């Protein structure tokens, strides 16, 4: 608690695990070639720019996950934590993920002004997933 006091009332933001994910995000790097689910989301209001690529295996489960881009600590950490969570999920399971899942991964619920940051990764996934599902429909 002494560290919390020293650092002001951050309400769980920027605790060590968040900062670790921010400084060394998991699954960060070049997007997998031939990704099944792929999307880039840009947030003009804060300059965040996130790309996410997923491949599905023969059983339709997430095999490889990679993301890259730039953003604030909250958006990068949330995307990093979310990327860990995606592995092995089926498409219907991906579709079920919502903001509560992201807040649970983060360990706190950001206020109204930072929720968009925390949810940028999820938004990228959801938009990519919708594109994938539309393509499947067309087939």
């Amino acid at each position, binding site marked *: 608690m002494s560290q919390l006091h020293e*650092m*002001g*009332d951050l*309400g769980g933001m920027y605790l060590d695990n968040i900062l670790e994910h921010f400084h060394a995000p998991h699954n960060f790097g070049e997007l997998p070639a031939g990704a099944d689910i792929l999307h880039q989301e840009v947030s003009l*209001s*804060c300059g965040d*720019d996130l790309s996410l690529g997923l491949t599905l295996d023969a059983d339709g489960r997430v095999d490889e996950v990679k993301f890259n881009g730039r953003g*604030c*600590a*909250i958006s990068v950490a949330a995307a990093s934590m979310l990327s860990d969570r995606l592995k092995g999920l089926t498409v219907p399971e991906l579709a079920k993920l919502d903001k509560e899942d992201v807040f649970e991964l983060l360990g706190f619920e950001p206020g109204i002004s930072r929720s968009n940051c925390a949810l940028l990764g999820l938004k990228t996934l959801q938009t990519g997933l919708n594109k994938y599902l539309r393509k499947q429909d067309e087939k």
Partner: protein
Amino acid sequence: MSTGYDPKTIRKDFPLLSEPSGRLRAYLDSAASSQTPRHVLEAVSGFYERYRANVHRGMYEASERATERYEKSRKTVADFLGADESEIIFTSGTTHGLNLAVQLIEPRLGPGDEIVTTEMEHHANLIPWQQAAKRSGATLRLIPVREDYTLDMEAARRLIGPQTKFVAVTWASNVLGTVSPVAEICALAKEAGALSVVDAAQIAGHRPIDVRQVGCDFLAFSAHKMLGPTGTGALYGRRPFLDELEPVSFGGDMIKEVTFEGATWNEAPFRFEPGTPNIAGVIGLGAAIEYLNRLGIKSIWEHEKELTDYAFARLTEVEGLKVIGAAADKDRVGTIAFLVEGIHPHDLATVLDAHGVCVRAGHHCAMPLHHKFGIKTGTTRMSFGPYTLKEEIDALIEAVHKAKQVFRV
């Protein structure tokens, strides 16, 4: 201070500053919205508690009193601007005022005409002109901001010419703090036969305003950035020019005679104020000006200049911090945007908030200006008011150091 100006005494008039709730330690976001003194709060609640009624209509005491107070505010605003009360149109704020100015003069715009504005406008003084240009086939030209964050006046002289119909300029940038040579720009407009519109949102309440000296045709400002209530402001429109303009929105209070076939208009400024206005807000605006006059606008200016110099001195102590805006020795207001290397402005603002320091982070409604300087993330911005203390700047500096610790930069 030698003038006897004492922000610590002034703060006692502001409930939110003298008895702060939550973790508030430093309020450094007055450029977004200022705090409100009791004098204004009492004027607003006095209307609701003692003589709440509509204006310009009721033939009974309360309504007459409301009308008197409402119109007294018009006189107060006129004196505040060096204008005549018939030149004051009450609005919901600067954005409304600027949009109204554009709508009023847009009928004079056609293909081949040019509108000149600057690269450091708030979106509210850029987008309405972009839209007017699109509708009319006119062209929008921009006076560039130079590397030292001041306007390129040589370019202004080149850009403003016989083809120019309107010149729109902010008096002070809400990001860079830069003060424009408005009188010079309005003179260029006049010489070219163009009309001029000034955005005074960041000047009103911070420096004296004299519209005759500025030489503008329109000038807009908001009450809530100068200690008044939200949702209120005023647009100055020069007479007799104002009398030539047709109203753009219609309803009660703005007409002379109505038949089933048509209508004739009330005189200016009433023909531009359709419907029941923000009576409490306007009364509060008048009270805010009374209060500002009591403090003395020139003293406020000096106080904020001293704070700006102090802030610059303290900011230079922080390694990796870069001010995005006019240097302290330039003509500028107390609005200072900055970047700290390695920390996203949103993260910085969150850490500052955790330490009770209120600032704004983002593009401050000036996205193209940030992009021009290669800044995609926005900036963090502190800004001052008549009540701001040096201790609040100290609190910010301390919290910036804490943020650097958190982010290991």
